[in-house]
């Protein structure tokens, strides 16, 4: 007889190397993913603590709907106080970790305290045992070599969250890599320096073995199946799913270029003369011609029907990197004056291997160009600088700490970042709603906390952008709490009862039509409260001054959404 599903909070003290399993507190029950992280940090972490210090905690939490291979809804959220922003930071990823944690009945994994010894460890977690192993032989090793070595040791069926040298060196751009379903460590909780926090806890890797685990129980299986069917059909039927299946997120390159929002040469222009060469259209043609290991479509999570990921291979048929995404193309391509996808792919692989966020590294390299460390388009030099980050040289560390730090040290005012976290590939002067998100979100320059690209609004008109951003931020905070990928939003939006029905069937709750917004608002409320206690004020919800002054070609726009409108975006939640 199968054991009952035992949902617990797993608490790990990394100094005493003890793991305890605790009951889930009542106030945590109705949250998952990002919302749960916000709750836990507010409950347990001193908001004024040192992000890389002893009182800081790193929390892993799968979303509320994870566990049933609901298309594009098995995502993992990781959170902590960010060493980049000094505030609450969540980063989510696809891959297999979320599913494993849920099978094991882990509501949240809390890593706390800090070792006094600098040695690195691998933590092995299963339902039967917990094992700590010294990871000396993996220190300094990139993720693409580390992952297969851990799989060889622990078996091919495990999930792994791991660091590259960047996280070991506690760089602000360091993230945490997870395995995709082919066991390639290409799915990253990238932004905000969570890899640095994991590095401060001296964990090289966490291995999750869900042997003996089970799918979480569903209160109303028939109701769940019905809601799942409606949602899956909505996802399949939505035209945007086909676009992402065929072109991946690189579909956005020419869209943003046409809008004058494609970051070019450190955000000095919104259009790139060679945009076609780095477009999703060109990438598709290239991959179809090359064949071999290339694939224009790929699922990062088992069961996903959208399959927006890809495998980018070279002329020789061998994989260069998987995936190659829009943000990476934007920040490592046009942002640096680089027009070659192969080169961008190779830079992506290196940055992944070091375990870093391609967005903040790309933005830092853009700042480096303005500072004369590199000339526009010089990809060989870019690879040299990336190698300096890997080797932890002083210049490497400056760049590895991200665009904001690099700008301060190198004396460059043109830094595309808010709250110390670089902007992704949408110039906020040309997509103003997203600019509002960058300025007002606790997450900084993070498009995934509220992209407004699809909103039917004139992106260059400051009117209506705060409302557009608010709606996007609330909805996405909701999806982040469910464990739903940003891509699944189309499906959920066109089957509007799906969120309510899935949650009620899964948990036996009685949520209403506004289930998504209720979760989203609660998440944002908790995050903002944490940030307030950490010392944030309205003064931090600002666009960089230079973007309010320097007109962006080709449409000569500045960021001019009124500050008092932005200040009131969440006044109902404060």
């Amino acid at each position: 007889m199968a054991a009952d599903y035992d949902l617990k909070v797993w608490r790990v003290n990394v100094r005493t190397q003890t793991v305890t399993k605790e009951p889930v507190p009542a106030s945590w029950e109705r949250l998952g993913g990002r919302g749960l992280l916000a709750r836990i940090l507010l409950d347990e972490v001193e908001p004024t603590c040192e992000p890389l210090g002893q009182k800081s905690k790193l929390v892993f939490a799968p979303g509320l709907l994870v566990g049933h291979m609901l298309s594009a809804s098995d995502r993992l959220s990781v959170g902590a106080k960010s060493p980049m922003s000094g505030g609450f930071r969540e980063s989510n990823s696809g891959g297999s970790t979320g599913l494993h944690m849920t099978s094991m009945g882990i509501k949240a994994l809390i890593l706390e305290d800090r070792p006094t010894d600098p040695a690195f460890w691998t933590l092995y977690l299963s339902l039967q045992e917990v094992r700590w192993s010294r990871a000396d032989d993996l220190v300094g090793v990139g993720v693409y070599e580390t992952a297969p070595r851990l799989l060889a040791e622990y078996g091919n069926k495990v999930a792994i969250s791991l660091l590259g040298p960047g996280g070991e060196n506690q760089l602000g751009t360091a993230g945490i890599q997870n395995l995709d379903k082919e066991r390639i460590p290409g799915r990253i909780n990238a932004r905000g320096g969570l890899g640095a926090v994991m590095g401060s806890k001296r964990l090289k890797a966490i291995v999750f073995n869900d042997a003996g685990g089970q799918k979480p129980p569903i209160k109303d299986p028939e109701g769940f199946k019905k809601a799942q069917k409606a949602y899956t059909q909505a996802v399949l039927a939505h035209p945007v799913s086909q676009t992402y299946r065929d072109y991946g997120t690189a579909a956005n390159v020419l869209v943003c270029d046409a809008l004058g929002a494609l970051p070019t040469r450190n955000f000095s222009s919104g259009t790139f003369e060679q945009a076609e060469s780095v477009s999703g259209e060109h990438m598709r043609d290239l991959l179809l011609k090359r064949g071999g290991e290339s694939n224009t479509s790929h699922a990062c999570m088992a069961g996903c029907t959208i399959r927006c990921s890809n495998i980018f291979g070279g002329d020789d048929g061998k994989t260069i990197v998987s995936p190659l995404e829009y943000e990476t193309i934007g920040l490592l391509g046009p942002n640096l004056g680089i027009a070659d996808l192969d080169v961008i792919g190779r830079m992506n692989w290196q940055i992944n291997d070091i375990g870093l966020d391609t967005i903040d590294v790309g933005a830092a390299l853009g700042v480096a160009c303005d500072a004369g460390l590199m000339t526009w388009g010089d990809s060989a030099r870019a690879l040299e600088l990336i190698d300096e980050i890997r080797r932890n040289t002083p210049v490497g560390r400056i760049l590895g700490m991200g665009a904001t730090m690099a700008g301060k040290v190198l004396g460059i005012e043109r830094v595309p970042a808010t709250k110390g976290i670089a902007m992704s590939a949408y110039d906020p002067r040309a997509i103003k709603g997203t600019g509002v998100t960058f300025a007002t979100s606790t997450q900084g320059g993070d498009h995934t906390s509220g992209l407004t690209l699809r909103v039917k609004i004139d992106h260059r008109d400051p009117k209506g952008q705060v409302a557009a951003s608010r709606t996007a931020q609330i909805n996405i905070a909701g999806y982040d709490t469910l464990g739903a990928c940003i891509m699944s939003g189309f499906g959920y939006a066109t089957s509007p009862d799906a969120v309510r029905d899935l949650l009620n069937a899964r948990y036996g709750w009685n949520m209403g039509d506004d289930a998504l917004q209720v979760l989203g608002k609660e998440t944002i409320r908790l995050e903002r409260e944490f940030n307030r206690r950490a010392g944030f004020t309205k003064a931090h919800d600002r666009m960089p001054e230079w973007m309010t002054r320097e007109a962006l070609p080709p449409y000569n726009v500045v960021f001019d959404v009124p500050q008092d409108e932005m200040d009131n975006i969440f006044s109902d939640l404060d």
Partner: protein
Amino acid sequence: MEITVRLYLTFRTGRFRVETRECPAGATAAGVARDLEIRDADIGMVLVNDRQAELEQQLLPGDTLSLFPVVGGG
């Protein structure tokens, strides 16, 4: 009248990337899309001469019309 049409992503398949075409005077973006057998529901963004536009917008001689399918985030 003569206009330039730019197509993107799936719209290019079986059609073209950029083309100068004849269309009737007073044609709308929607009309051109229909001629190209592109469904309204599939259109995510319309640009006329680099400005976002509605499908009902009437075109003028020499205009550039850009049609994009629905896209989302990166």
